[in-house]
């Protein structure tokens, strides 16, 4: 177990380097001269040249690549925003909490709604409840998130005036963004939970539990739920990824000051350090979340723990055999 954790932690090193390389390559192939974005198209040639030298744009690609990685890894230096001249990291960190809240709130809300929906559907397979909740889930995975957001805006803030159309100064401001980001996940999770629960209710241990006269609710919740949730939990990483993507768009629709809105604005301004910084920050946050999820998952699922032990045993046996031969 300990070995696995160390291995998983060490794996973060190539991930970080990989993400930085991808981001660097993307900034290399982008069209447009960054100098235009900073000093403007009509600046005198001397000013432009001075700026080029200052930014190190005249260095060979390899030198720039190494210096970029060294800067990010050693000092957390993501460069300065072309638009404001302030360090990108500071600007990002100021906006990061909102993105985190939106992403995780929508994941949690989706889990709370979708798991009971999926379980109920499986337990009452082919009933009205099953059909209704699966229709809802299908609708959830099929509707474009941003369109759902526009429709809810139209209904709840333009027509009914119950909720604000933008801004998060009040708690009510979070309702529509969280609903928008969550809707796709509700559908996905409910469908996963249903099919995994359908598999579980056919297992012998459920029949055993019923045969010994256990109450149905205990059979479903205690014996069924714990096993049926494993695929759902295994998929939470994916869920978080989807939410993060949704959050980027939600922030710009609902004018939430987050990393996504910051990045989309930077894209319009061709402000590469800010775009790069945003991608790096979100990708690293996602990787760390995945790391934590992986470790939790291994800790929770006894089968994985056992498998890991068994693998070690086989490996140990192989080694000793090898030595013997």
């Amino acid at each position, binding site marked *: 177990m300990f070995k696995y954790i160390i291995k998983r932690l060490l794996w973060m090193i190539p*991930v970080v380097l990989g993400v930085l390389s991808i981001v660097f390559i993307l900034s290399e192939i982008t069209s447009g001269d960054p100098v235009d974005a900073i000093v403007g198209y009509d600046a005198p040639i001397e000013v432009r040249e001075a700026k080029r030298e200052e930014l190190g744009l005249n260095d060979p690609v390899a030198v720039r690549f190494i210096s970029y990685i060294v800067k990010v890894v050693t000092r957390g230096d993501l460069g300065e925003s072309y638009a404001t001249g302030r360090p990108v990291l500071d600007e990002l960190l100021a906006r990061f909490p909102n993105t985190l809240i939106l992403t995780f709130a929508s994941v949690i809300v989706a889990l709370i709604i979708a798991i009971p929906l999926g379980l109920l559907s499986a337990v009452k397979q082919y009933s009205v409840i099953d059909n209704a909740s699966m229709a809802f889930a299908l609708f959830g995975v099929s509707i*474009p998130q*941003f369109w759902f957001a526009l429709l809810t805006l139209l209904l709840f803030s333009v027509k009914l005036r119950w909720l604000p159309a933008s801004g998060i100064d009040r708690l009510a401001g979070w309702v529509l963004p969280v609903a928008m980001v969550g809707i796709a996940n509700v559908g996905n999770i409910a469908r996963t939970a249903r099919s995994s629960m359908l598999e579980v209710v056919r297992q012998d241990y459920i029949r055993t539990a019923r045969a010994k006269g256990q109450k149905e609710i205990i059979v479903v919740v205690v014996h069924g739920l714990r096993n049926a949730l494993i695929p759902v939990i295994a998929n939470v990483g994916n869920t978080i*990824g989807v939410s*993060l993507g949704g959050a980027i768009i939600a922030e710009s*629709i609902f004018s939430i000051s987050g990393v996504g809105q910051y990045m989309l604005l930077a894209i319009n301004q061709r402000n590469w350090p800010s775009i790069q910084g945003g991608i790096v920050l979100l990708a690293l946050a*996602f990787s760390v979340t995945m790391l934590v999820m992986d470790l939790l998952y291994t800790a929770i699922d006894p089968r994985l723990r056992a498998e890991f032990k068994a693998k070690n045993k086989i490996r140990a046996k192989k080694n000793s055999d090898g030595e013997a031969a």
Partner: protein
Amino acid sequence: MAKLYTPAMAAVAKKRARSKRKATSGQSTPSREAWKRLKRNRLAIAGMVILAALILVAVFADFLAPRGYDVQNLSERNLPPSLKHLMGTDNYGRDILSRVIYGTRVSLPIGFICVIIAFAIGGTLGAIAAFKGGRTDNIIMRIMDIFQSIPPMLMAIAIAASLGNGALNLVLAISISTMPARSRIVRAAILTVKRNDYIESARAIGASSRRQLLKYMLPNAIGPILTSFTFSVATAILTVSSLSYIGLGITAPTPEWGSMLSAGKELLRQAPHVLLFPGLMIMVTVLALNLFGDGLRDALDPRLK
């Protein structure tokens, strides 16, 4: 020796072929069984019919659309639906129905092409990883892991931002960002059939790796790949529209459904009809693909039913 092949012989050969076909048509093969199960699934058939209809609309858009997709009439701006404009007009006085109809020519092909490319690259890598196993598998999959440490939507936004607008760049952005996930699907599908006896026997009779993979493994592993293909097209169409909505994909005047909605938020108060129909079209298309995908999954893997 001269070739003797009289019409009478041809007739006999034809008859034989026909009777042979008749004899096998009653037999049940896995794909026929799957088709039978699919036909019984009314929702899947509904999805298929909707898809076929959409494809027909795309093909005959020139005949169906009452106007061109970029014909502007500034005196008819933001009109609500009426008999003259069944879906109303947008902020440039363009007929929304016409734009929605021409939109099928954008979203459907782009969605399919993205998935085909993602499967062609990712699938090949996944198949090689599964087939070779060992170190090759490890290296390929670890590279995919690194790609997947950036969530697909974020990756697509990053690539689209760096390449700029346009259909081709959008296709690249979506294909590359979804490639790792597709490679995993193909890898898993190949791994499940890899240990079967018929693969063993193919190897025993000296089939080349390529032949083993393409002729024996792929056809047997095609079920989950096909299902995932259908769902992937649905996701790709959603991603295309989202990226176009935030201005990173297909831009005006091309009538992409997502970009038609990008003016929607400002018009929310005066002309809500502008954002109704394009969104509805995206949803119907994606819904049809999902229904068909669900049916395909149940038909190809009856255990799940």
